[in-house]
């Protein structure tokens, strides 16, 4: 079963390969409801969202749904792990959006798992959490969008149970800023990070993109992460374990 849901300013795509139609539809409904709940709580575009109100100091953390504290703790963890290249306060205001989407996708994937629908992929605006393989003996194949050639695929990640996130200049309307210089990160055209859980993988991909060339050593040193990157001139590099993930 496939489903596309417009939420959080982008489209989430579900691809579920197992389960009876009725149970699949029910679990899908729960996952979709979850995404809308996340949007309502965390949207910085909604002035009345708990996160917006928290950011303005109108309410305290205790008055927010418990997920807010959970996400802010994850943000702090990501800040530490990335040497500050990830932050939940990109401007003056609180904005955990850089972590929330990956976290929401990972949780939606977990909801499907809990419903017994293990063969699935969840893609939120180009960030992907994969469940079990779609069919016995067949991996999921995740195309990595080529940042310089419209419509082309730069590489293919094949596997199951993986999280794949790509950060790049091609994300229209988005500018990833190096927090240590304040300048737009421009050393890379895109960076794809592959790991197992999208919360960290998505946040780290953003941070690694901001690191530029230094991301390579950082990812090499990190456990359970591999990276593929392309520079604005079309040169690519990958970490040593990345070839094992390609199909």
């Amino acid at each position: 079963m496939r489903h596309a849901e417009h939420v959080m300013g982008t489209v989430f795509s579900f691809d579920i390969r197992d389960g009876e139609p009725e149970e699949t539809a029910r679990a899908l409904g729960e996952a979709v409801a979850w995404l809308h709940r996340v949007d309502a709580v965390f949207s910085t575009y909604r002035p009345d969202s708990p996160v917006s109100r928290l950011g303005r100091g109108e309410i305290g953390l205790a008055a927010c749904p418990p997920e807010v504290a959970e996400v802010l703790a994850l943000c702090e963890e990501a800040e530490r792990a990335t040497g500050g290249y990830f932050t939940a306060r990109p401007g003056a205001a609180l904005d955990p959006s850089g972590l929330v989407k990956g976290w929401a996708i990972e949780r939606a994937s977990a909801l499907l798992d809990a419903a017994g629908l293990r063969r699935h992929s969840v893609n939120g605006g180009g960030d992907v959490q994969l469940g079990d393989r779609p069919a016995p003996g067949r991996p999921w194949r995740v195309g990595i969008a080529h940042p310089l050639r419209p419509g082309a695929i730069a590489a293919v990640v094949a596997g199951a149970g993986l999280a794949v996130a790509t950060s790049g200049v091609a994300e229209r309307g988005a500018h990833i800023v190096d927090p240590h210089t304040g300048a737009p990160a421009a050393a890379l055209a895109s960076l794809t990070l592959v790991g197992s859980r999208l919360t960290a993988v998505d946040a780290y991909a953003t941070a690694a993109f901001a690191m530029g060339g230094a991301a390579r050593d950082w990812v090499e040193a990190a456990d359970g992460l591999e990276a593929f990157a392309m520079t604005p001139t079309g040169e690519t590099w990958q970490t040593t374990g990345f070839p094992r993930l390609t199909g």
Partner: protein
Amino acid sequence: MRRALLAVVVTTIGLVLLLSFKPHDVTAVAQPPSALTQQDSGSGRQPSALTRSDGDGDEHGDEHGDDDGDEHGDDDGRGTVAAPTPTVKKSPSARSAAGGATGDVVDTRWGPVQVRIAVSGKKITGVDVVQYPDGNRRDREISAVALPTLKEETLSKQSADIDTVSGATYTSEGYIRSLQSAIDRAGL
């Protein structure tokens, strides 16, 4: 299959549109890497990793492709990239007299969009955008690039063995919605 086809086009449109909309940005970053590789500048400021300024609701990521064929990224040491180069053809698409469907007219922030697909068997053999925003130079530039590439990608990527796509996936809702309705009508 239906969604696979749509997804292929979605990906294409998304990439084309975003590149079209940001020609200067794309050009601007095609410069030698600046001094961003430093791990810590010791600026003393609170770090700020990212600023997202999107939010116009017109972007989407939604792509699937589910068929056979092969596109592979190289996995040798240097990680050179094997990617198909979309051929941008400016010739008009073939309209199949035998089969096809016209999608809804969908209003976007840039203007109305309507697509028509030609179908032979169970395959899309042509895509026409019969209405598109052309109110200014930028609109026309976008359309000039997006439409032929869209067609090319729709036709060639039906065989791409990709389940989903990671990366830049923004696109125009209008194109997708009109395309979806056309695909629905064609019964693909």
